[in-house]
C-alpha cells in the first residue's frame, strides 16, 4: 500500500540537519542552530551573521551565513578560528491581518457581497504553492495556504469568490502516482456532494498536471460544476510568479463558466493578461519553463479569461461536448476513482529494440501497451511479430502518435495496415499521456479485456474527437 503524505510538511524545524560531516560536528559542538546569530573570526575577517541552512547537495567544507547586508556567503571551515553563538533564533508569530489591511489592490472589498453571499469555491492543494511567504531573515520560502494567507497574497480573489482552502497533499507533481489521483478524485467528490460549491480548484505542480487532469476527467463523470486544475511555472515566491493570475483566472472561470467538467487554467501567452482554460484530456505541458507551457492539442482552449470576463469558445467551433453547469444537482454525478497502473507507454524511435516489447510481456505485469508510434501510427516492420505475440498473449496494444498534433490513421501505409491486422488498436487523436491514463482507468473499471478494448475506442471525456479543426498552431 502506498504511503500517502496526506498532511503538508510541517514547516521544517530549522536545525543544523542540512549540515554534514565536519561542519555538522562543529555546529553541534557549539550548540548553534540555523537561524542563530553567530560571531565568526577567520584568518582574515570577522563576521556577525545568521547561520543559514545548507543545500543538501553542497559540500561539507563551508558554512553559510547571512550578513547584515542581506547577502549570503559561504565561510570555509578550515579558516574559522573562532565561532560562537551570539543570539538565539527568535520564532515570530505574526498574523497576516496587518498585511491584509496594508494592501488595497483594485478596491477589493468584502462589501461587494453584502446583498448576496459570494460564490464559494473549494481550493484543494496537492503541491506547488499558489502563495508563499519568504522569510527574508533566513531566506526560507514557506507555503502560505490558509484562506487569510491567500487573500493577503491575492486580494483580488475577494472580489470573485469566497474560497475554502484545504491541503490534501504536498508533493512535487513528479512524485504523484495513480493512487494520488484516486485520493484527489475522492476529495473532489466529497466537495461536490456537499453541494456547497460553485467550483473546485485544485492547485497542482505543473509537471504532471495534465495527467491528473486526464485522470479526473475519466474518474469524475457528469460533474455538476467545474473542476479546475491550476499551477505555476514561476514559483509564487517571485514577484513575477504566474501563480496569482492563474488562480484568479481559475476562480473567475469556476464561478462564471456555464459548463462543468475538468479543466486546466494557465497562462495563454508569455504575457500576464489572458488565462486559457483547457479541457482536461486535451491539454499537454509543451514547454519546460514558459508560462504558456500548457496548450490544448488540436483545438483552441475552451475558454479565455480576459480581465474579469470569460470568453467561451463558440460551440460550433468546439467539436467537443461540454456539459452544462448545474449548481444544485449532483444526482447524475458518478465517481469511478480507481486506476490500474499495469500499463506501459513505449515511445518508438529508430533503433528501437523489438525485444523491449517481449521483455515487457515477459514481465506479465502489464495488461496494456500504449505505443507512441511515428507519424500516422507506425513502428518498424521488425516489431510486428513481437507485437503480434503480445496481442495473442492477451495484451492490449494501442497506437498513438509521437507527433502529438494530429490523429493516427493506420490504413494509409502498409505498416499501419499490418499493425491493424495483428490487432493493434488505433486511438485516433487521443494524446499518448491521456491514453495511458485512460487505459489505467479503463482496466480498473471494466470486467473483461473485450469491454476494456471497447471503452478505449469510445470517447468518454473528449479525449477522442472526430474533427481536427484548421488552426494556426
Amino acid at each position, binding site marked *: 500500500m502506498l504511503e500517502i503524505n496526506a498532511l503538508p510538511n510541517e514547516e521544517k524545524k530549522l536545525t543544523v540537519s542540512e549540515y554534514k560531516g565536519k561542519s555538522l560536528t562543529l555546529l553541534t559542538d557549539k550548540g548553534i542552530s540555523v537561524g542563530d546569530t553567530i560571531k565568526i573570526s577567520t584568518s*582574515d*575577517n570577522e563576521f556577525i551573521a545568521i547561520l543559514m541552512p545548507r543545500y543538501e547537495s553542497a559540500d561539507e567544507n563551508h558554512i*553559510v551565513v547571512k550578513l547584515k*547586508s542581506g547577502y*549570503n556567503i*559561504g565561510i570555509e571551515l578550515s579558516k574559522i578560528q573562532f565561532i560562537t553563538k551570539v543570539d538565539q533564533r527568535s520564532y515570530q508569530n*505574526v498574523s497576516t491581518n496587518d498585511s491584509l489591511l496594508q494592501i488595497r489592490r483594485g478596491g477589493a472589498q468584502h462589501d461587494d457581497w453584502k446583498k448576496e453571499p459570494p460564490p464559494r469555491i473549494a481550493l484543494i492543494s496537492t503541491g506547488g504553492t499558489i502563495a508563499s*511567504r519568504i522569510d527574508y531573515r533566513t531566506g526560507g520560502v514557506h507555503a502560505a495556504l490558509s484562506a487569510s494567507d491567500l487573500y493577503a497574497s491575492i486580494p483580488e480573489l475577494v472580489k470573485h469568490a469566497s474560497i475554502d482552502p484545504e491541503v490534501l497533499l504536498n508533493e512535487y507533481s513528479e512524485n504523484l502516482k495513480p493512487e494520488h489521483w484516486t485520493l484527489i478524485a475522492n476529495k473532489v467528490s466529497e466537495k461536490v456532494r456537499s453541494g456547497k460549491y460553485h467550483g473546485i480548484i485544485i492547485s497542482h505542480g505543473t509537471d504532471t498536471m495534465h495527467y491528473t487532469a486526464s485522470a479526473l476527467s475519466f474518474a469524475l463523470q457528469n460533474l455538476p460544476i467545474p473542476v479546475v486544475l491550476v499551477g505555476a511555472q514561476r514559483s509564487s515566491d517571485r514577484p513575477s510568479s504566474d501563480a496569482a493570475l492563474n488562480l484568479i483566472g481559475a476562480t473567475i472561470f469556476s464561478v462564471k463558466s456555464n459548463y462543468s467538467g475538468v479543466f486546466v487554467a494557465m497562462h495563454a501567452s508569455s504575457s500576464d493578461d489572458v488565462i486559457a482554460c483547457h479541457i482536461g484530456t486535451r491539454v499537454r505541458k509543451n514547454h519546460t519553463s514558459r508560462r504558456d507551457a500548457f496548450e490544448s492539442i488540436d483545438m483552441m482552449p475552451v475558454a479565455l479569461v480576459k480581465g474579469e470576463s470569460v470568453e467561451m469558445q463558440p460551440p460550433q467551433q468546439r467539436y467537443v461536448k461540454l456539459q452544462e453547469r448545474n449548481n444544485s444537482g449532483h444526482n447524475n454525478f458518478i465517481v469511478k476513482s480507481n486506476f490500474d497502473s499495469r500499463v506501459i507507454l513505449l515511445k518508438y524511435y529508430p533503433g528501437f529494440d523489438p525485444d523491449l516489447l517481449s521483455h515487457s510481456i515477459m514481465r506479465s505485469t502489464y495488461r496494456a501497451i500504449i505505443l507512441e508510434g511515428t507519424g500516422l501510427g507506425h513502428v518498424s516492420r521488425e516489431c510486428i511479430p513481437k507485437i503480434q505475440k503480445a496481442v495473442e498473449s492477451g495484451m492490449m496494444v494501442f497506437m498513438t502518435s509521437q507527433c502529438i498534433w494530429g490523429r493516427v490513421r493506420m490504413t494509409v501505409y502498409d505498416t499501419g495496415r499490418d499493425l491493424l491486422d495483428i490487432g493493434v488498436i488505433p486511438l485516433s487523436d487521443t494524446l499518448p499521456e491521456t491514453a495511458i491514463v485512460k487505459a489505467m482507468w479503463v482496466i480498473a473499471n471494466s470486467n473483461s479485456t473485450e469491454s476494456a478494448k471497447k471503452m478505449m475506442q469510445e470517447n468518454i471525456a473528449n479525449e477522442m474527437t472526430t474533427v481536427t479543426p484548421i488552426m494556426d498552431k
Partner: protein
Amino acid sequence: MILAINPECINVKVGFEIHQQLATENKLFCSCKCEETENYKIFFKRNLRPTQSELGMYDAAALFESNKMHTIKYHAAAGSCCLVEADEEPPHEVNREALETALIVSLTLHSKVVDEIHVMRKIVIDGSNTSGFQRTMLIANGGYLDINGKKIGVQTICLEEDAAKLISDNGTIREYGLDRLGVPLVEIALEPVSGKPQEIMQVARTLGRLLRASKRVARGLGSIRQDVNISVDNGNVVEVKGVQQLDQLIKVIEYEMLRQHGLILIAQKLKKNNINAEVGIGDRIEDVTNILSKSTSKVVKKSLADDDNKGVFKAIRVKGFSGMIGFEPYPDIRIGKQLSELVRFYGLGGVFHSDELPNYGIGSEQVDAIKKKLQVVDDTDAFVIVGGQRDRVEFAVDALVKRLKMALNGVPAETRAATFDGKTTFSRPRSGSGRMYPETDIQPIPINNALLDSLSDRIPRPWDEIIDTLAKKHRMNKKLAEQVFDSPYLSLFEEIANSTKIQPTFIASKLTEDLVSLQRQGLDTALLNENMILDAFERLNAGIVAKESIVLIFEKIMKKESKTIDEAVAALGIMPVNEQELQRIIDKILEENMSIVKSKGIASFGTLMGRCMSVLRGKVDGEKINSVLKQKLEQLLASNTGLKTQEYQD
C-alpha cells in the same frame, strides 16, 4: 550653483556605490550578447506583485511600487534577449569571464574575497527586472582605494545583473527594453567620505580610472552609474540613483546639501509651532471635487476629466503648517515641491496648497469653501489638495499625510533620481536591506586560493602609470592622455594610432575634445560607432578625406543626416577619389592648362596647384596632390624639351 552653505558646517557625508558594466561578450546568466539595440521585435506584458515576507508584512518599497499597479511592457530583440531575460527560463551558470573580472577588481582594491559565493535575489518590483528581483552576489568585503596616499575604505564588491532599460512610463504602462537586462555589473560600495563636492568627485573619478585600467570594463555613456548616499547632520541617508557623469555628480551633491539642510531648517521652524503630528496632520480629509469643478483652472479641469470624467479632488487639513508649505529656506527648496514630486509618483500632476492659493484659476470663493468644508478655522492651519483618478488620489492622500508628518523630522530616508541638470526628484521610499533571499536555481560557487593566485597576475597596472605611458608613447601632454583614458575610445585610439600614420595628438583631440563639444551641442555620440570612426580615420590616412573633414563627417552622422561614412562623405561633397581618378583629374587639369605650362614651365606649379585644390579640396590630402602634380609636371616638362625648368629649381 553658488553654494550658500559650507559643506563642513553641516557635515555632508557621501557614500558611493559605483555600478560598472563589464566588457564581457555574453550576459551574466545566459549566452546572449551584451549589445544595446533599439530594434525590438518581440513584446510582452507583465505585472509584478509584492511577495509576502515571513512577518506577514510587505516591504514598504515593494508595496509602494505595487500600489502603482503598473502594467509593464517589455521590448526584446533576438541576439540580446532569450527566455532567461523574459523570465521564462531558469538562469544559466554564472558567466566565468565576468566572475574573474569581479575577482580581479576585488584583488586590485585589496578586498577580501569570500570563500563561497552565493547568488541572491534582491527584490525589485518597479519592472526593471522581469523576475521581480535582481540577481546579485557578494564577491568581497573590505579593502581600500588609494587616492594620493589617502585610503578610502571599500565596503563591499558585488557582481550583479544590470536592469532593463526604461523606455517610457505614461503612468499606467511602463515600457522597458530587455537588451541591457543581464549585462554583468560590478557594484563597489565605498565608505562614506566627507569634504567638498569637488574632492568627493575625485573619489569617483579615481575609482572609475582604476576600473578602466583593467581593460575589462565597458566604456561609454551609461556603462558606469553612480548611486550616491548623501546625508547631512541630523538627517537621514538619501540615496540618489542614476548619476552618469561626474560634473552632474557635483551638482547633485550640492543640490542635496541645500535640499536636506533646507528641510532641516523647515523642521526646526515647524517644531516651534508645536504641531501634534498624530492629531493635526490629515485628521480631516474631504472630497472637494464639487467645489473645484467651479474653478477656471485648466489643471483642475484636466484632472477632473481623468478616468472618463470620474476624476476627484481631495483636500487634507494640516494644522500649524500655514506659511510653511511654501516657505523656501533656499531657492526652490520647499515642502510644496516635495509633495508635488511625491504625487507625481502616483501618476498625478502635482498638488495645490493653501500657501499659494488663491491662484492658478482657483479663486478665493473656492478657497473659502474648501476651508469651510475642512473646518480650517485657525490662521495657522494649512491645506493640501490633490486630484485625478480616484484610486491614485487615495493612495496619494495617504502618502501625502505620511510625508507631511515626516516634515517635522527634516529629511526623510528616500531614494531619489538624479535629473540631467544635476538636481534630484523623489522616486521611492528607501528600501530596507533585508529584501534578499537565495537564488536557488544556481549552486554556490566555491573560490579557492589557486584561482585567486592565478588571477593575481592579472591585476592591472595602476591607472596613472598607464596614462604616463600613453602620453610618452604617443607624445601627448598628460592632460590629453588623461582625456583619452577617460573617454570611451582608449582602445580605438590605440588602434588608429598604431595602424595609421596620423599624428596621435590629432586623433586624440578629435576623439575627446571635438566629440565632447559635439555632444555638448546635444548630439548623440551613440550614433557614431567605433567602426565608423575607424573608417573615417582610415580614409584620412589614405588621403581620401582631408583632416578638416573628420569633424564634419562626425557631425553629419551624429545629426542623423547621414547613416554611414559614405553617405556623410557624399553629403559633404567629398567624393572619394581613388588613385586612378586622381591621376586622371590631374592629367585633365594639365591638359586644360597646357598653354600656361608651355609659357611658364615649372613656374606654373603654383597656379596648377590652385586649380587642382579647387577641384580636390577635402577629398584628397593636399600633400598627396602636391606630390602627384609635381611628378606629372616634371615628366611633362622632361618629355617636352625646350620647356623651361630652371625657375622651379631655383
